[in-house]
């Protein structure tokens, strides 16, 4: 068999299959000359982002961008800009991340790269959602979905429907959220992705609970939790545990809500994902208040507020502040 030696292959495969620690280890072991390659920096940035080291991710992505640009690789430059923006996003600088994703979107449009256009639009949608700009978020997701669908990229289609469902849920438009989650589930099945199936199920469960059918909602959320755990997707697990806590609180199962909320926060902390941590703290604060643990509630509300402010999510920070003041 005729193959060329590709020292970065192991790291690339590890990243593609979600083994980010393996990727980082493989990249660290490569000889110095390989570690000068722009793709080495790009892969390092991707691995670092997934491992929660957003600062290193951002730094390496910027380096990758400069090196891709130096060799005239516009495709690589665009990918590096996108990862750099993701790093900035993780650090909580939403405005800077928005600029980065917008720049990547522009580069992708110039190159006619529909897939990257869709990805950037999806990321911009996430930023809009974090900023509580719901209509803008829905618009970005709609645009991203059109792009993904056009390319037959069902993973992307499923992700945009999941994000759309989250956005509607955030607005308490549960019927719309359920409809979006239904679409997400169909797309996730077509994509054959267990991770996306779990997320779609979780969103269906949360929407059903919101529509006043907590029993069915809980069944979906439990199924989703099983999938997330079997896939070792800690971020999804944290999210589902948080939603289970919310559903429990809605039916008056307060102790259960606290238990799920604490579990969620513990898992979220393991992922180092600042948004997941902030969301878990916020919902846990509500559960603490419901059982009368006012000091714990105040502390959790304050932590959530601080985390939202660091992320630049002012509207959510203000909401957490108002809720804390109401205790």
């Amino acid at each position, binding site marked *: *068999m*005729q*193959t*060329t030696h590709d020292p970065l*292959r192991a790291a*690339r*495969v590890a990243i*593609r299959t979600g083994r980010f620690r393996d990727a980082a280890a493989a990249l660290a072991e490569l000889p110095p000359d390989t570690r000068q390659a722009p793709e080495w920096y790009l892969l390092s940035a991707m691995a670092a982002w997934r491992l929660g080291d957003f600062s290193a991710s951002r730094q390496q992505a910027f380096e990758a961008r400069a090196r891709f640009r130096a060799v005239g690789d*516009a*495709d690589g430059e665009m*990918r590096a800009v996108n990862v750099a923006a993701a790093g900035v996003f993780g650090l909580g600088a939403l405005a800077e991340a928005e600029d980065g994703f*917008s720049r990547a979107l*522009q580069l992708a449009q110039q*190159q*006619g*790269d*529909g*897939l*990257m256009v869709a990805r950037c639009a999806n990321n911009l949608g996430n930023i809009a959602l974090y900023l509580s700009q719901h*209509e*803008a978020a*829905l*618009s970005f997701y*709609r*645009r991203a979905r*059109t792009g993904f*669908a*056009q*390319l*037959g990229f069902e993973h992307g289609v499923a992700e945009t429907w999941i994000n759309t469902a989250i956005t509607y849920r955030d607005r308490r438009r549960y*019927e*719309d959220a359920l*409809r979006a989650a239904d679409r997400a589930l169909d797309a996730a*099945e077509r994509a*054959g992705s267990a991770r996306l199936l779990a997320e779609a199920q979780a969103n269906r469960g949360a929407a059903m609970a919101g*529509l*006043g*059918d907590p*029993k*069915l909602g809980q*069944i979906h959320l439990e*199924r989703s939790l099983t999938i997330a755990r079997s896939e070792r997707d800690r971020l999804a697990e944290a999210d589902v545990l948080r939603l289970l806590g919310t559903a429990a609180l809605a039916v008056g199962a307060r102790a259960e809500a606290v238990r799920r909320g604490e579990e969620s926060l513990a898992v979220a902390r393991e992922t180092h994902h600042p948004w997941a941590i902030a969301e878990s703290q916020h919902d846990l604060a509500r559960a603490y208040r419901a059982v009368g643990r006012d000091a714990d509630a105040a502390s959790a509300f304050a932590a959530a507020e601080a985390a939202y402010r660091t992320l630049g999510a002012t509207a959510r920070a203000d909401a957490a502040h108002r809720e804390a003041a109401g205790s």
Partner: protein
Amino acid sequence: MSDITPTLGVVAFSASFSTIWNDIAEELGVGVERFEPDDELPGRAVALIVAAGGEEERALDALPAWSARVGAPLLFVGARASHRFAIEALRRGAADYFALPDDLDLLRRMLAARIETARGRTSKEAQPVTDPFRELLGTSPALQETIATASRVLAHGGVTLLIGGETGTGKELLARALHDGGPRAGEPFVAVNCAAIPEQLLESELFGHERGAFTDAHRAKPGLFEEADGGTLFLDEIGHLPLSLQGKLLRALDDRKVRRVGGTQSRGVDVRIVAATHVDLAAAVRERRFREDLFYRLNVVPLVLPPLRDRGDDVLLLAEAFASQLAARYSLPVPRITPAVRDVLKRHNWPGNVRELQHAVERALLLSEPGTLDPASLAPASGKSASRATADGPIPFPATLTTIQHAAAQAALDRNAGNKSAAARQLGVSRARLQRLLDRKEGDDADDA
């Protein structure tokens, strides 16, 4: 029945990965036909693998000519994991791009799926073309009449269509079928719900905006018309389109051009409009809420999807289909539709239509003993939907108090599977009072609370 064994075509530009095709074919139970780039390529194969490892540029050049005459999807297999390269391959006619060895499993899975599909097709020799309306299940005359009309316009990709029908009857499904089965298949299908977008944002969403067009327009953005160029724009709930935008939509339909908000230039777009509404647009025209000229421009071919309550035994057919699909989704045994379940299904009027039925079946499936559908588990979803019906179901909105009270009584009865005592308890009224509410007709005195 045809006994054609599916084959895998391989056209090799290099010797890279040359040993794996036989293994894959053997594993999937198909034959392999090998070709050189200059050979006459096969007209029929499950897929044609363009094995390009190391010779990507040369293989890329050959793609456009082949994509037009090879009657099988071209799967481009290279060694370069370049994102941009993959896009280029797709643009030149490849159905997909795989960078080996990383994507080997992905390729294997895709081939397995295609072979399964091909086997299904060869076992149905009399069905050369897949029915685009296959997802609109039902044998009722009301539905079949609509599908027959839709079939007649299928080939006319430029005709504007207006689909009427209550919420949940499958309007988007029909629009999607018309797109997928028509000449615009493969081009974008963009769906937007006009009622879901705030009025002040809808213009920018549909037509796009230029940078600085308004306070938050930090950068230019194409609208959905531009996104749908070449394909179909599905405008759901068109009756909610504000009057101020109706004129702009009419101009876009007539001129085939759109102008972004804040823009000075028009852009040509080739978009087929399929609009849908659950309200009576003709009445909206009479009440001057909808422009008459736009109504007639959209209503070139009207299609109406009947409500589930008017589709006779389709409710049973659909329930069985959903039960079977959902049981597979949740790895549960397929439940039997018992006479008691049939009774509940037939008795309820399904104001939320097919979508409500699907959720009711799912609910019952998940809450019942495996392999069964508990009629009582169907009921809560039914009851909940009846309250939804006040706004968008068969109850007109605004409705009289009599109508609403009658609907509430009927909903409670449905929710309790016809048990009047239980329904009365739930509503906090006597059984006799419940009966009066159920017996009421429009025009009766409602003020007896």
